[in-house]
């Protein structure tokens, strides 16, 4: 089987973006492979163990983050690592362009995949674009999947169950499996392994979304009915103003 895993950094750290005097700074120091992508890679590894094949890891992250997460992927068993250094795959306005370029690149390199998998995040809709353009089946937000391609997708009040068919593009949640841990020798080897660097023509500035930082201020307001007979109507006004009551 030929599998491509598109890996991304986790987005749990509060301080990943900070701003000072209207300038937003990106802090990559603490970013590592996201849990969903670890599970994606684990699934790919399990498939290879059963059906044989190769895993190519791709990253669209920037700078040290790209190298770090690709090292993690290789230490776990990915056979090759490629980083695309153009653009921001999380920006919904850039996704169409970047996917188009990626597909062109894969075609030029003669790479055809049975499975393309990436961990689910609210930015992973680029996977739908890949599936559409490469005419592959698309299964997303999977909460469960096994090596026989039986899958589950959890909705609000129940689960959709079905069978996937190759060739396919998948986005998965971290509940599909418990990923293995690498060992230190593998990490050391990965650190010294080659990462292919790919760049595309830059997107024009108009099409790039801005990032802003907003520290979430939690408002708290408790009225006292004895001191303030209008408390209830004031509460209603406040809730309506904040969109909590409509």
């Amino acid at each position, binding site marked *: 089987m030929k599998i491509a895993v598109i890996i991304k950094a986790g987005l749990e750290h509060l301080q990943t973006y900070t701003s000072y005097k209207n300038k937003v700074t990106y802090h990559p*120091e603490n970013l*590592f492979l996201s849990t969903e992508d670890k599970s994606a890679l684990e699934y790919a590894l399990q498939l290879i163990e059963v059906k044989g094949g190769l895993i190519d890891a791709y990253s669209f992250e920037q700078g*040290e983050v790209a*190298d*770090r997460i690709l*090292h*993690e992927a290789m*230490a776990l068993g990915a056979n090759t690592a490629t980083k695309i250094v153009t653009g921001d795959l999380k920006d919904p306005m850039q996704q169409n362009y970047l996917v188009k370029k990626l597909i062109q690149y894969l075609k030029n390199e003669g790479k055809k995949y049975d499975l393309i998998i990436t961990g689910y995040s609210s930015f992973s809709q680029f996977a739908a674009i890949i599936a559409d353009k490469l005419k592959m089946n698309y299964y997303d937000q999977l909460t469960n999947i096994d090596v026989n391609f039986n899958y589950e997708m959890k909705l609000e009040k129940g689960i959709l169950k079905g069978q996937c068919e190759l060739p396919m593009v998948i986005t998965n949640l971290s509940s599909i499996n418990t990923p293995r*841990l*690498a*060992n*230190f*020798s593998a*990490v*050391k080897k990965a*650190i010294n392994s080659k990462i292919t660097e790919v760049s595309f023509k830059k997107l024009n500035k108009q099409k790039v979304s801005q990032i802003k930082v907003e520290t979430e201020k939690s408002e708290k307001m408790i009225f006292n009915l004895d001191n303030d007979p209008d408390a209830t109507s004031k509460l209603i006004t406040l809730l309506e103003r904040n969109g909590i009551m409509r």
Partner: protein
Amino acid sequence: MALQYTQAQKEYIHLTQEFGDRYLTPEIIKKYDKEGNCPRSLFEPAINLGLHMLEIPEEYGGAGLSYEDSALVFEKLAEYDAGYALTLITSFVALRCVLMAGTKEQAQKFANVIKPGHFAAFTMSEADAGSDAGSVKATAVRNNNEYILNGNKAFATNGGLADIFIGIFRTSDNGNHGLSAFMIDKNTPGIWIGKHEDKMGLRLSNTVPIGFKNVHVPVENLIGKEGRGINIALSSLNLSRAYVSTLTVGIMQRALNEAAKYANEREQFNQPIVQFESVQNMLADMATSVETARLLVNNTMKMMDKNLSVRQEGAMTKLFVTDIAQKVTSDAVQILGGYGYTRAYPVEKLMRDVKGFQILEGTNEIQRMTIAREVSKKYQF
């Protein structure tokens, strides 16, 4: 962070953190700390990661990480439990003796024992021979092509867990220069492992007395030459001294993390206690201690990686780090107050664990002796 981590170091530390979060949860550590032992099964995942062979050279099947990098890994591991980390690095103390003074065959044989997931122990101390290593009484008598070992050893770390020992025995009456180092297979008849010590701290580390009664070891198992035992032991200890200091840094970092977190959450007099200057002062001192300790360990590791002598620097590192760790962990308990004094919170264990480091690997009094001797050479007194 004062220490500027390399990218590779960040990745090694991150893997260690993932390992610790998954396998060394607070509940598990608390349970085994209370029981005072650690089942071999808890080491299985560490062995899968290669943590038992981290710094062993690649030619012997290890990961071959530098001292600098592996020290950071064990520092992170010690944040979860220092006794657990100590178990993993104790094999190195033993192996180092063989690497430094033994033959390649001996080193290969030793590594082959550890590689599949076994441990080694280094045993020199006896009931009457602690700091005064020269008064070791256990004997090794040459008989044709073997030595016969007799005697009782005390406080052998990993003794109950190890499959292979390095033991220091007396081959002649020449005081310090009558000691020799031997590689001993655990299964040799005549070895008995005594009762596990009920220690104040580092309770996940196995510490036992070992008795030798007419234990026959082949002459090939002598490491280096007869009479070189103390030199071999001290050369190995020179390196491992600084190495165990890294575990102490890990304990201090954990103490700081717990204290800072608690101080932000605990409210008294209508505010989080972290707003009070006395608490802030303690945290400031703790943080400064952790950063300076880490830098000192890191520098000594760099020297070791360059094969420079660290007789003085190793002793200074161990002395400085383990002494300031006492105050750091004590302050952590202080900040957590009444709750910190109970076992329900993890900080009292940190205080108990850290005391052991002022004693093992050469007491801090011996370290001062070593440092004074080196200083005297320079200033000629």
